[in-house]
C-alpha cells in the first residue's frame, strides 16, 4: 500500500513537472471551453448545455492519449524494467499510474466547471451525481487507454491508435458534434461508441434530471471500462519485446471490443438511438415533386451560408424513444380548407410533379447575400397577389425540413426541456406587447414577427424549434387570413425589402443583443414565411 501511494504521489509530482503534459492536460480543455463559450455566446445560460461535451473531451484526451503515452514511454525507456527488479507487482505499477491519471482528470474537470462558472454558468444541478458520472466516464476511457497502452509498442503507435478512437468519437460519436445534427446512420453507429453515453451521463447531472434517467449510459460506461481493464490486464507487457505469444494473445482485444458491441446492441434493442427522427440531409433535388404530404422534403439548392452546426436540442435523455415525426401534421388545421370568399377561391388539389415554374424560387434567396430576384411577372403590390402566383412561384418542397438544423419548427408533440420552457414562457408572455409586432402596416408587422424565429435560428438558441410555433400563432391572430396569405407570399418573394430595425430590438423577448448578419436573418424570415404559408394553405403542412 505504501508502495502504491508513493508511486501515485510520484506520478503526480512528475506530471506537474512536465510543462507539455500540463499544457495538454489543462490548457487545451480551457481553450476548448472558451471556444464553446464564444461559439454559443447567445445561450442565455453560458455553457450549461455543453458541459457534457466539454468534460467528455477532457477525459477522452487524458485517457486515450495522456495515460497510454505515460505508460508506454516509461516502458520504452526501461523505467519499468528497473521497477521490476523490486518486489512490486505489475498491478501496483499500472494502477498507481491510472489512479494518478484519475486525480488529474478530476482536477481538470473541476477547473473546467470553475471556469464555466466564471463565465456565468450556475452550479451543476446534481454535483455528487456529476462526480459519479465523471468517474464512470473516466473508468470507461481509462480502460480504453490501458488497452491502447498494452497494444502500442511505442509512443507514435499510441498517437496513431489514440487518434483512431478519438477522432471518430468526436465527430460521429456524439461528443463534439451533437447527435441531432448527425445523419441517421451515424447516430446508429454512435451507439457503439462510449462517447455519447459519456456526454449523456454528464449532461444529465449538470442541467438534467440526474443519473436516474441515464442509468443505461452509466451501465454502458462501466461495462466498457471493465472490459478494457480486463483486456488491458491480460495484455499487459513489462517490455515491448515481450510479444503476445502467451495464452490467447491479442484475442483479449476482442473482449474490449465485445463490450462496445454489446452496449451498442443493447442500445439498439432499447430503441435509444435517434434523437430526432428527421435529420437534415441536404439531398440534391431532382425535379421537385410537390406533394403536401412529402414530409421529408429535401432541402435543395445552395447550402445555407451559415456554418451548419449545432442545433440545440436537448441531449438524448429527454427525447422519446419513438420517432416522433412520422406523419404529416398541421399545427393549424384550420388553415387547410380555403375560405370561399377568398380571391383565391379554389385552392387547387396539389399536383404531383412540378408545375414547371422555373422562376426564381424565393426560398433560395434566403441563402445568398444577393437580393432575390422577384418574379418578373409577379404582382406589383401585395394586394395584387393571386393564388396563381403562389402556385407558380413558391416551391414549398424546397424549404428545409422542419426537423432539420436550419429553419426548424418543432412538431406539436415535442416537449421542450424545463429551462427551454422557461425561456419560451418569457417570450410568449412578451410577444403580444412587443412594439414591432404591433406596427400599423401589416406587411411590416409580419416581417417583424418573422424576424423573431429567424434571429433565434441564426443564434442557434435551444428554443429555436419552438419559437416559430409561438410566432405563427401571434401572426395569425393579428392579420386576417386572406391578407396574411398574400403578405406571406410578398415577404417570401421580397425578403430583402422593408425595415429590418426590429432585428436589433429583440431584448424585450428575452433574446440577447448580438451582432448578426441581417441578410441572413432576412433570408430565414423569407423561409419561415414560406413555411407558414404552406401551413395555412395546406400546401406544406407542418411535419
Amino acid at each position, binding site marked *: 500500500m505504501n508502495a502504491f501511494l508513493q508511486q501515485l504521489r510520484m506520478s503526480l509530482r512528475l506530471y506537474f513537472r*512536465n510543462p507539455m503534459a500540463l499544457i495538454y492536460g489543462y490548457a487545451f480543455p480551457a481553450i476548448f471551453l472558451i471556444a464553446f463559450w464564444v461559439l454559443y455566446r447567445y445561450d442565455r445560460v453560458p455553457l450549461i448545455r455543453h458541459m457534457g461535451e466539454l468534460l467528455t473531451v477532457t477525459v477522452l484526451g487524458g485517457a486515450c492519449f495522456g495515460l497510454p503515452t505515460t505508460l508506454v514511454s516509461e516502458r520504452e525507456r526501461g523505467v519499468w524494467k*528497473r521497477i521490476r527488479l*523490486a518486489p512490486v507487482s505489475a498491478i501496483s505499477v499500472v494502477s498507481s499510474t491510472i489512479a494518478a491519471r484519475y486525480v488529474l482528470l478530476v482536477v481538470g474537470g473541476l477547473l473546467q466547471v470553475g471556469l464555466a462558472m466564471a463565465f456565468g454558468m450556475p452550479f451543476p444541478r446534481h454535483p455528487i451525481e456529476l462526480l459519479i458520472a465523471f468517474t464512470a466516464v473516466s473508468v470507461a476511457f481509462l480502460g480504453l487507454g490501458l488497452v491502447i497502452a498494452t497494444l502500442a509498442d511505442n509512443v507514435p503507435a499510441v498517437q496513431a491508435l489514440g487518434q483512431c478512437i478519438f477522432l471518430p468519437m468526436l465527430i460521429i460519436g456524439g461528443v463534439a458534434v451533437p447527435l441531432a445534427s448527425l445523419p441517421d446512420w451515424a447516430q446508429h453507429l454512435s451507439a457503439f461508441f462510449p462517447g455519447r453515453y459519456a456526454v449523456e451521463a454528464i449532461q444529465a447531472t449538470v442541467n438534467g434530471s440526474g443519473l436516474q434517467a441515464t442509468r443505461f449510459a452509466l451501465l454502458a460506461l462501466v461495462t466498457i471500462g471493465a472490459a478494457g481493464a480486463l483486456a488491458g490486464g491480460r495484455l499487459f507487457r513489462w517490455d515491448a519485446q515481450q510479444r503476445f505469444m502467451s495464452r490467447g494473445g491479442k484475442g483479449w482485444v476482442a473482449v474490449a471490443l465485445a463490450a462496445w458491441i454489446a452496449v451498442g446492441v443493447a442500445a439498439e434493442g432499447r430503441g435509444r438511438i435517434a434523437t430526432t427522427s428527421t435529420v437534415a440531409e441536404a439531398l440534391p433535388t431532382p425535379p421537385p415533386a410537390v406533394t403536401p404530404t412529402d414530409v421529408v422534403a429535401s432541402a435543395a439548392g445552395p447550402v445555407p451560408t451559415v456554418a451548419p452546426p449545432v442545433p440545440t436540442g436537448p441531449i438524448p435523455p429527454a427525447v422519446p424513444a419513438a420517432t416522433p415525426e412520422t406523419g404529416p401534421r398541421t399545427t393549424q388545421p384550420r388553415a387547410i380548407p380555403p375560405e370561399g370568399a377568398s380571391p383565391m377561391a379554389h385552392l387547387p388539389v396539389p399536383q404531383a410533379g412540378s408545375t414547371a415554374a422555373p422562376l426564381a424560387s424565393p426560398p433560395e434567396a434566403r441563402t445568398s447575400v444577393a437580393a432575390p430576384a422577384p418574379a418578373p411577372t409577379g404582382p406589383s403590390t401585395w394586394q395584387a397577389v393571386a393564388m396563381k402566383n403562389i402556385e407558380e412561384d413558391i416551391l414549398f418542397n424546397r424549404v428545409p425540413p422542419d426537423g432539420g438544423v436550419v429553419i426548424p419548427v418543432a412538431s406539436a408533440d415535442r416537449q421542450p426541456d424545463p429551462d427551454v420552457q422557461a425561456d419560451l414562457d418569457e417570450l410568449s408572455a412578451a410577444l403580444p406587447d412587443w412594439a414591432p409586432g404591433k406596427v400599423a402596416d401589416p406587411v411590416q408587422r409580419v416581417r417583424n414577427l418573422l424576424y423573431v424565429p429567424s434571429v433565434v435560428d441564426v443564434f442557434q438558441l435551444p428554443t429555436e424549434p419552438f419559437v416559430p410555433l409561438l410566432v405563427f400563432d401571434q401572426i395569425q391572430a393579428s392579420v386576417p387570413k386572406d391578407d396574411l396569405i398574400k403578405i406571406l407570399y410578398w415577404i417570401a418573394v421580397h425578403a430583402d425589402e422593408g425595415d429590418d430595425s426590429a432585428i436589433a430590438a429583440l431584448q424585450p423577448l428575452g433574446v440577447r443583443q448580438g451582432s448578426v448578419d441581417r441578410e441572413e436573418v432576412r433570408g430565414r424570415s423569407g423561409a419561415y414565411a414560406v413555411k407558414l404559408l404552406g401551413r395555412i394553405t395546406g400546401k406544406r403542412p407542418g411535419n
Partner: protein
Amino acid sequence: MAAKVQVRNLRKRYGPVEAVRGVTFDIQDGEIFGLLGPNGAGKTTTLECVIGLREPDGGTIEVCGIDARARPRDVKQRIGAALQSTALQDKITPREALVLFGSFYAQRAAPETLLERFSLREKADATFDTLSGGQRQRLALALAFVNKPDLVFLDEPTSGLDPQARRELHGEIIKMRDDGHTVLLTTHYMDEAQTLCDRIAIVNHGEVIASGTPEALTSRSSSRQLVTVVASRPLAAATFETLGDVDDLVVDGERARFHAAAPTRTVPLLLARLEQRGIELVELHVQKATLEDVFIELTAAERSE
C-alpha cells in the same frame, strides 16, 4: 556452508535461439563472483533469470536458500541489482528515486546515507535528465542498495564508463565485499574480472566452459607463459629459434617476445646464450597467462571440437 546462490542446469530459449544451455554455478557468501564472457554469451540472460526478470525454461535457482523460481518476490526483497543501463523518469531526482524505491521493500536504507555513500549529495535534487553517465551509474548502484541487500547483482557495471569512473567503480565494488555483501557481476573485460573477482565462471555460447579463482584458471591452463626480453643490442631471431621451447616469436630490434611452455628451463638457457654473445640484458619479464589467454585457449578448443 551453503552457497548464497545455487544455479543448476539453467536453460533459457528465445524462439529458435537457446541463449542459456544448462548453466550451473555456486556463489559463496561474501565473495565477488564474475560471469565472464563475450557479448552474446548468455551472461545477462543468466543474471536476469536469477534476479527474476526472466522466466527460465528449465533448471533450478536458489538464492539465500529461497527457491527463486517459486518465490521471486521473496528473493527480490533480499537482493539489489544494477542493470547495464538504468532508466528513470526524466524529472525524478535521486532523492525521490531512493524514497520511491525504498517504499517497495520491507527493509530500507536511509536515502541520506546512500546519497553520501555514492557521492550523490550535490546532485540529490537534480533531475535525472541532467545527470552525467557516471552519476546515473552511481544512482543505479545506490538504488541497488536501497533495501540493504545481502546480495548485489551488477550487469556490466563499467561498460560505457570512462577509465576514471571505471577505476572508482572498481573501488566501490571491492568496498561492497569488504562491507560483507556478496556480489555477482557480469563483464566482458578480462582485466576487470581478474582484478575484482574472487571466483569466475567463463561463459560462452550459453555454457560455463570453465570456473574457479582467477589464479586457478590461469595456472590450470595449459598455456605457456609470455617472456619479454629487452637487450642492449639488436637481437637476431636465430638466437631464440634454437632454444627449442619458443612459440609465437616476435623480434623487433632490441626487443623480443615469445611464449614458452617451461620458462624455468628456457629462460636460463636464453640468458646463458646472451652472455655467450656479449649481449647485455636490459629487461626481462616472465608473465603468467592472463584470463584472456585462458579464454582464447578455451574457446579455440571449443571451436576445434
